[in-house]
């Protein structure tokens, strides 16, 4: 096959591309330029936007003897990922930008362009598996449970999965690093990327404050009593416990958690952990990675990139307006579930699909 390998400049995409070559594919490398103002050489690697990363990607392509190009998706990335990230926080929700990037950039704009240019598949260093199933290729969790990235890929639909290659899904990270060293790839000991690639210094609150402006607001308890002030509701996440800056203790000294964020009044409501308990989740914008689940299916739900799963019965409401909605009834209460998060649904290791949480109760 003619394969387009996306090289971020990190170790994972490098080994993935090398394995695609070993499998006999005709591989061409691209580095995605996602920032129109690349940061200068940063120490350590945080993502995929620095000049150092683009140089590292180029050197990997040299060593693997692959044609190498830079594809500029900076405009689309800003619109679809960065602006969305800021808007979601402004609306009191907690977005996952990696998921949006996979949905709109890597497995949409890049994949489309690759197909149009005559490629058969796009290869990335994501830790997830594509396995044959009775109804076509299925998306599964990676063998390395600590590195599993199937959650941020749960937005992919069958045509995208059929054109994707994740050669690392069956490996553990330590082996991938060792393989990179054996292959002479200079990125073998490069630190893992973490946090958010477009926030170079890791200061998400500072990034948001610079774009949304610091805005003093109140922290209240469930009865409306004022407990403190904050510099912007966007600085909080439902379920957050630390960093609330409250000086009035609860009578029994039990900790308080963020229960909800109300962007219009810029109010953060806090309360005890039990008030966070969620038993039912409603979500919309469902995307199935294969055949849709059956109404009443017993699935495992995951609502954070590296969170635990919760067993649930999933209902598919009928009716014209409910075509892309799901509702889930959890076996045990879950904590820290909030509107805006992506709900990924699993049948054992298989990713069934995903939807965006709209309400909890």
């Amino acid at each position, binding site marked *: 096959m003619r394969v387009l390998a996306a090289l971020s400049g990190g170790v994972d995409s490098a080994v993935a591309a090398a394995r695609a070559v070993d499998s006999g594919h005709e591989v061409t490398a691209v580095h995605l330029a996602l920032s*129109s103002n690349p940061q200068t050489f940063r120490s350590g690697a945080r993502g995929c936007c620095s000049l150092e990363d683009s140089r590292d990607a*180029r050197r990997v392509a040299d060593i693997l003897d692959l*044609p190498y*190009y830079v594809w*500029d998706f900076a405009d689309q990335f800003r619109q679809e990922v960065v602006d969305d990230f800021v808007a979601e926080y402004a609306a009191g929700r907690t977005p996952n930008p990696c998921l949006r990037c996979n949905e709109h950039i890597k497995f949409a704009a890049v994949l*489309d362009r690759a197909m149009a240019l*005559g490629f058969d598949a796009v290869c990335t260093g994501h830790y997830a598996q594509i396995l044959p199933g009775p109804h076509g290729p299925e998306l599964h969790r990676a063998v390395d449970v600590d590195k599993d990235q199937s959650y941020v890929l749960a937005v992919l639909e069958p045509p995208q999965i059929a054109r994707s290659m994740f050669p690392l899904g069956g490996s553990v990270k330590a082996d991938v690093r060792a393989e990179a060293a054996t292959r002479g790839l200079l990125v073998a000991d490069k630190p893992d990327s973490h946090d958010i690639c477009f926030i170079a210094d890791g200061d998400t609150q500072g990034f948001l404050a610079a774009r949304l402006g610091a805005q003093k607001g109140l922290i209240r308890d469930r009865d409306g009593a004022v407990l403190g002030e904050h510099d912007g509701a966007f600085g909080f996440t439902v379920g957050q416990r630390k960093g609330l800056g409250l000086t009035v203790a609860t009578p029994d000294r039990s900790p308080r958690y963020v229960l909800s964020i109300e962007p219009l009044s810029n109010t953060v409501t806090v309360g005890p952990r039990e008030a966070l308990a969620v038993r039912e989740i409603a979500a919309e914008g469902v995307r199935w990675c294969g055949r849709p689940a059956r109404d009443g299916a017993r699935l495992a739900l995951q609502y954070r990139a590296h969170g635990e799963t919760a067993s649930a019965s999933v209902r598919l409401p009928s009716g014209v307006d409910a075509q892309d909605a799901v509702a889930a009834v959890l076996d045990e209460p879950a904590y820290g579930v909030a509107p805006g998060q992506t709900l990924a649904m699993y049948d054992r290791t298989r990713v069934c699909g995903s939807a965006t949480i709209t309400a909890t109760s």
Partner: protein
Amino acid sequence: MAYLDHAATTPMLPAATAALTKELGELGNPSSLHAAGRRARRVVEEGREVIAAGFGARPSEVVFTGGGTEADNLAVKGLYWSRQEERRRPRILASSVEHHAVLDPIEWLAGSQGADIVWLDVDAVGRVDPQQVHDEIARDPESVALVTVMWANNEVGTVQPIAECVAAAAGFGVPVHSDAVQAAGHLEVNFAASGLDALTVSAHKLGGPLGVGALILGRSVVPTPLVHGGGQERDVRSGTLDTPSIAGFAAATAEAIDTRVERSASAVDLRNDLISRVLAEVPDARLNGDPRLDAEHRLPGNAHLSFPGCEGDSLLMLLDARGVHCSTGSACSAGVAEPSHVLLAMGSTPAEARSSLRFSLGHTSTRADVDELVASIGPVVERARAARSSVTTPRGK
């Protein structure tokens, strides 16, 4: 493989390779006073004479640099600074289609030293108007630090009316510089006849080695140095002279100048063939730059075409996969192509500018190279069009 990117760099001429490699085995710093130094100095000075003769200059007017970019920086920044000594002269007149080696120093001077840039307009083929040069200077002659207009454009190949620009500035006492990196060795470039004060040439664009060039500088023109040190090169450009590279540069210049007329004529023929055959394959492609396909108006080996509905990046990649080497004309450090400022200045839209490719022929080009391109360009354009329409289609959430 068809190498159609000679404007980026062209293969070294065998005489240049021989001269360069011979010198690599020799010993001597040209500034040393002993025999080994004198031997190296002799090679440098003989090279200086050959290069001076090739470009109608005196040997003492040749200032060796580490390439065209350094020579352009020395001209722009060095002249700007030295022109401030007597009184403040903030204005720099420059064509809006200069190479980045001229453009960026000017913008840096504007950003950090208070220079006022007067961008000279170009017409639809990329030519400046000498009358604008005259009028802009005449408006306030004392305020002008320098004028810079390239000899021929690196992207679209348009030859500028240098003699007319120099004439327009004559009488005002304003120094005029021209970046002749693309022209030298391909067009007749005569420093004395041009009346210029400074002229940039580069070795590797005419069959010499990478990393060496020269600023040809009138004897009375004294720019402020960029590189201070041992005082080599008239105290204008310090640094141990690179004897092997200069030997290669000189050998290449001699051969390029000796064979210029014949090579230029055959490049024009081959280039015209390329243009007409590509237009036959892709009827809606458009030639950018001067449509007068003679060496007086357009660089002999230059063909610059827009392919409506295509991304230049996609075309380049698809041609590369078929062994055809060409260029989109501009690139930045991270490798992301911006729409060409040259095409924008000529009135193209950003989309038109992004749909362009430059094919440049040189001394090793053959009809077989053109055949390879012609065989590929039709399917490649078709494929690139499909790719562009797939990306510009908005996706639903």
